[in-house]
């Protein structure tokens, strides 16, 4: 069985807030759900599938109750938790459920407030006693990937900086972007070192907020007013040190999720008009572009340099909302906003300054967890009908 073309993304909503001390996290979930339903032209009572991840306070059932979903109707629930890429996996799983007839209108929500207050600690596994003392954080776990990538392939800080530069060029047109100023390679290199070789401007923003999606059947999508966008390929994968054998931090689980999604979609990286690529750090983007096959392994530095990711300038317009590097990385989880901007591009609803002409095929890809430690990855190939 394939999910190709079996599910349409009928509703999207990105919360405009980037700092929400005046709101609760469940409230943000409700607001994004409401926004996505209104975007789709559907109502809460239409929902018969619900997906959320670790950001949902108390997990799935408290959210179902709080949102007041119709529990007599709700027949498919999924709380897959894979960090920031959870929502890309949810989209794939929603398509599977819709293809199997297990639900017809699925809601996926993400929301939280890391900017307002401390986040709960990351869950630890069997490795805790053997790793917890060493102080792995997002910054240094990705720093270790960047350090080794530079060692093996000669990747430079200047090349990584171009990724931030491209994101900032896009963010200047997004009135909701957390950082709206265009920056230069020099700005990135002159920003303080956080965890070598990553500077402050190699890191994404920390923002409150959230987003939601409505995924539905082809029949329901065709009855609605929005341009039709469907999922035609999906892949997911996970990677870790696995006993320490043949450790290689220069690639991500995207080397597996990407080909799975492209094969299902029947397209290649060359066909992609727009790419939403998870950008927790600049190195995250560079490694994933290689892993997905947009360039060869080790050539990501050359690929991203000189504005190649800037819409209207380069060959592969990416993260035209400004991405996690400039616009929004709600709850330290960028997967939801990656899907949302890809849908905007396919609908022709991106800002005119960054809209890709005739954008009919896009990719949304992300990782979750710590790239240099243990992580998951998910790839979604999306098509305008």
């Amino acid at each position: 069985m394939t999910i190709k073309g079996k599910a349409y993304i009928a509703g999207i909503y990105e919360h405009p807030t980037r700092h929400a001390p005046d709101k609760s996290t469940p409230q943000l979930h409700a607001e994004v759900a409401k926004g996505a339903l209104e975007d789709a032209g559907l109502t809460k009572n239409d929902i018969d599938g619900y997906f959320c991840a670790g950001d949902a306070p108390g997990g799935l059932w408290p959210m179902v109750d709080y949102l007041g979903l119709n529990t007599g109707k709700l027949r498919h629930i999924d709380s897959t938790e894979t960090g920031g890429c959870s929502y890309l996996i949810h989209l794939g799983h929603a398509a599977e459920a819709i293809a199997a007839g297990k639900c017809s209108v699925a809601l996926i929500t993400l929301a939280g407030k890391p900017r307002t207050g401390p986040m709960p600690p990351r869950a630890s596994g069997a490795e805790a006693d053997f790793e917890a003392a060493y102080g792995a954080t997002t910054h240094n776990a990705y720093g270790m990937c960047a350090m080794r990538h530079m060692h093996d392939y000669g990747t430079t800080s200047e090349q990584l900086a171009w990724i931030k530069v491209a994101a900032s060029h896009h963010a200047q047109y997004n009135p909701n972007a957390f950082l709206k100023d265009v920056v230069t390679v020099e700005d990135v290199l002159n920003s303080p070192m956080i965890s070598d070789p990553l500077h402050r401007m190699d890191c994404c923003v920390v923002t409150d907020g959230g987003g939601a999606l409505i995924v539905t059947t082809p029949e329901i999508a065709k009855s609605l007013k929005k341009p039709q966008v469907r999922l035609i390929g999906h892949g997911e994968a996970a990677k870790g040190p696995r006993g320490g054998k043949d450790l290689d931090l220069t690639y991500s689980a995207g080397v597996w999720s990407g080909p799975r999604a492209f094969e299902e979609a029947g397209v290649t990286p060359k066909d992609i008009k727009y790419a939403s690529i998870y950008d927790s750090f600049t190195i995250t983007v560079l490694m994933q572009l290689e892993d997905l096959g947009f360039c060869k392994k080790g050539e990501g530095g050359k690929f991203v340099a000189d504005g190649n990711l800037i819409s209207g300038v380069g060959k592969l317009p990416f993260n035209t909302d400004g991405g996690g590097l400039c616009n929004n990385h709600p709850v330290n989880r960028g997967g939801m906003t990656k899907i949302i901007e890809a849908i905007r591009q396919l609908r022709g609803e991106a800002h005119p300054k960054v809209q890709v002409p005739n954008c009919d095929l896009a990719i949304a890809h992300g990782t979750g967890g710590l790239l240099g430690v243990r992580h998951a990855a998910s790839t979604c190939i999306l098509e305008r009908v």
Partner: protein
Amino acid sequence: MSETRKYPTPVTNPESAPFWEAAKQGKFMIKRCTACGEPHYFPRSVCPFCFSDKTVWEEGSGEATIYTFSLMRKSPTGPYAIAYVTLKEGPSLQTNIVDCDIDSLKIGQKVKVVFKPTGGAPLPFFTPA
């Protein structure tokens, strides 16, 4: 003035207890599978490669080389070097490189195990050899 870094006491469990008992004697243990012959780290009862339950403890050399590292500049206890090192026996593991000038560290550099005290069993770290 930064706070002094304190290391957490290993919780330990029946599967990992022999590692921590050996650590108290200054021994750095790894696990090896007698079915496929592969060593691994951190230690498991069931081999993560061939899934055999015929794994045995073995004292490691404690010798390794730096696979990669990052110097964490933002820390209330001062900068520290997180790293993966590759043991002479093969497996790579996450650690900190300690008791050195962290700004002079290089990928490929030789390091050796050094134990640091906690409230319970000592924890393995690595330092330039």
